[in-house]
Every structure is written in C-alpha cells, then in structure tokens.
C-alpha cells in the first residue's frame, strides 16, 4: 500500500484528498499512475498525466520515473503559488 495525497485543483478534479492504495506491482510513479487509471478510469489517467502536474514522494519533489515502495507517501499537485 502507498499513501496518496492530492492538493488544490488535483484534489478537486478527482474528488479525493487522500487514499491508501495497493501498488499492484508498480515500482515507479509512472507505473502507479497507470495502475490507478486502470482502477478508477480515464478521469484519473487524464488528471494525473497533466503536463504541469508536480509529484512528491515522501515529501520530496520527484519525477515520473522515481521508484516507489510500499509505505511511501506519494503526492500529486499543480504548480505552487505561495507568497
């Protein structure tokens, strides 16, 4: 299982803020996105594949090829707008 967290427009578009999900053999973020798309449908694939989406694994910025292991915290969010 990995912990998924969604912020801002990503959360609103998916209608989910947090979830615990089985990885079903996925070993990278990209594979996890594929697994989630198969599990929840094309909306998830579309939202999680957006060009400007940002990803953090265990609270550190990560790319699509970043490895994931069970227990990881994986967050998806749009470009940041602080300050």
């Amino acid at each position: 299982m990995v912990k998924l967290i969604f912020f801002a427009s990503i959360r609103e578009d998916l209608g989910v803020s947090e979830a615990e999900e089985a990885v079903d053999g996925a070993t990278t973020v990209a594979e996890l996105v594929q697994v989630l798309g198969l599990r929840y449908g094309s909306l998830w694939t579309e939202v999680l594949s957006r060009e400007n989406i940002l990803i953090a694994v265990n609270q550190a910025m990560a790319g699509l090829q970043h490895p994931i292991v069970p227990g990881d915290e994986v967050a998806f969010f749009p470009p940041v707008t602080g300050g």
Partner: protein
Amino acid sequence: MQTKISVQTVEFDVGEETRALGRVSSQVGAITSFTGLVRDINEQAGVSGLFLEHYPGMTEKQIAEIIAEAALRWQLQAVTVIHRIGALQPTDPIVFVGVASLHRGDAFNACEYIIDFLKTRATFWKKEQTAAGPRWLTTRDSDVESARAWQKS
C-alpha cells in the same frame, strides 16, 4: 543561526517578529523584512477573497531548505518565515520574511532570496474568489524569472 518557521491561519505581528529578530544577539545591526499583502487585483479579475492551502510537513521542510541555502550565501543571524493559510481577504497580510544580520547588504539579499523561492518552490496553493467564480492560480512567470535570476548570481 536562529530560525523560526510557521504556517498558520492567524495574523502575524510584524512589530513583535522584528523585535524578536533583534533580540537574537547584540551584534544584530540590520533587520530587513518583507510583508506580502493580498491585493484586490491579480492579473485581471477583481478578487473578493483568497483561500490558501499547503502540504503540512513538506512545506515547512522546503522553507527550512530555502533558509539554509540563504545562510550559505550570506552571513545571517536569524530568519523568520511566517506564511498564512486558510481564508484571506484583500489587504490581509499573507506572508512575512524577516532577516537579522550584522550588515544590511546580507539582510536585504537574503530576504529577497527567501521570498523569491517561497513563491516558486514552496508547496502552497491559492484559490481566488473572483467576480467570474473561483479559480486556482498558477505560478507567475515573473516569479519564476526572479527565482531563476539568483541561479546566475
């Protein structure tokens, strides 16, 4: 170096934060601060309110990293970063960056560096309430440029 980082819903007191920065050491000669306010225009639309969220844990870690980078570049004695989250109105203070140093050049540079990277790297998100309905803001090109400029210097 002394560091204070707070992500909070309540308003901060610039006077109290500045005094606290000055108390760190009798060597502090310069305190610079940046206070960001919610403007009632952002790009085009009239903004009636703002909602801010962050990534608890990660955001604070990112702010600590930005401060640590500034401390490598300049001689700093204390840094305070306060960022508000939740519902805010136009003219509300939203962010405070305060820097105490022996010399003002270091204090000015570090203060500007920290706010430039807060704007482009820290996990905060703003949703504006406008006349045309709510919308999530995206990173401003001018902010990306400001942050990029530091990488050349």
